[in-house]
């Protein structure tokens, strides 16, 4: 389900519902040895918009981001950049990123990433189908004076 590019899996991890990602990870019950390259740190990213949607960039406001980096077996690095302020979510993201570069990638893909994709698609479908139900169908009334 997931195209195995790093850009994609990092995106799904970053925007995952934190409770859902944590439950998926905890259920796997994996024991992973790692070292911190960067311990979890809460910060912000300034979000930019475009004037008139196509013109000059401008700063709209910031969004909270947590990041950390891990090292597996002192050779594989994983980076966890996630939305929000949950350090555990960030650590899970970094470990998943690292594990996706190892022989364990099938386990992570099947048990975590594919499920995150499905979760996000379901949310998207829910919004689209509810929005569609509020679509306005215009109709015109034929009035007498045109005769």
């Amino acid at each position, binding site marked *: 389900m997931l195209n195995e590019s790093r850009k994609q899996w990092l995106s799904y991890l970053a925007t995952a519902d934190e409770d859902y990602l944590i439950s998926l990870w905890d259920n796997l019950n994996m024991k992973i040895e790692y070292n911190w390259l960067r311990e979890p740190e809460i910060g912000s990213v300034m979000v930019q918009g475009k004037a008139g*949607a196509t013109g000059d960039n401008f*700063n709209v406001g910031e969004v909270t981001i947590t990041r950390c*980096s891990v090292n597996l077996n002192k050779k594989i690095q994983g980076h966890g950049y996630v939305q929000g302020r949950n350090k555990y979510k960030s650590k899970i993201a970094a470990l998943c990123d690292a594990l996706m570069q190892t022989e364990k990638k099938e386990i992570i893909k099947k048990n975590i990433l594919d499920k995150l994709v499905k979760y996000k698609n379901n949310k998207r479908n829910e919004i689209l189908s509810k*929005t569609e139900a509020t679509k306005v169908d215009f109709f015109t009334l034929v009035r007498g004076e045109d005769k």
Partner: protein
Amino acid sequence: MYVSVKGGEKAINNAHSWLSEIRRGDVNIAELNIKQISEQLTLSVDRVMSEGSLYDKDLSALAIKQSRGDLIEAIFLIRAYRTTLPRIGSSKPIETSKMLCLRRISATFKDIPGKQKLGPTFDYTHRLLDFKLLADGEYDKAKIEKYDDKEIPHVLSFLNKEGLIQKEIPSGKTSKDITRNPINFPLTRSERLQSLSRGDEGFLLGLAYSTQRGYARNHAFVGELRTGYVEVQFEIPELGIEINIADVMFTECESVNQFNGSKKIPAQFTRGYGLVFGQLERKAISMALVDRSMRWKEFGEEYLGVAAQDEEFVISHCDNIQATGFLEHIKLPHYVDFQAELDLVRKIREEYKKNGQRT
């Protein structure tokens, strides 16, 4: 000689204890939790995120709880917290044309690709109190329908094709982040837009209303209003890979305003722009109108001396935390300042008594 005065420590501590107790309210009533606030008072949460200039629902809900529902106090808490966060970087500019819309309407064209979609709106409600909400937990469920998952283009892009509206083209001007650099007038439009997006909703509403009533010549139509989620793209510094780091809800308003033209360019509509965090359409529309009225110079229009055209007036006063900080500080002790004034007025009165006239 200056004699410093100390005291009031016990009074302050006891005042804070009472604040804590009164915030909790009647203990026989269940305590509010943060998730209840972020799920059920969503639009308060959105306002605090927008004016606090930090997109984080849980923090915003916490601030609302802590401030007893005083939204400006809550915004103050968020602003204070925001300053403690290390800045990891800046996103790529968002693509609002790719928004996952909950709502998308145009007041200028009836039939538009992507159609008019009302979304969860208060519009068309009768504004009658719903006493059902007093009684039980019943609610209507949203209806669903089959859809086409197609990108919804901006309405104004159609006017653009005919050259009927002024185009928004990047000017190449660099803009400063107003939260990191002191502002110097005149500002770039980008700096104005940043200020407006975190500005006070009430202040912007009042100014926008003033332009509608004639204090600045800019009759506005809502060309398009949309609310939904937009992917925020950010380049991971260690990897050089751009990822979707956050999904953020925005409301965007594009206004269509009266003409502008010259010997070189035939008459065409002009536009204003509003973009804010959350589902805050009153604020997004207000922002678009005020953005437009401050563009008078760019369009070679007359300066009518009204508030909404004056960027220094608007930008210097639209920030409710700056405003309330200065306003509320006058309730803190000014005993020495006032003593000086009191001495002065006594002296003037004495001289008046002596001379029988003002000196």
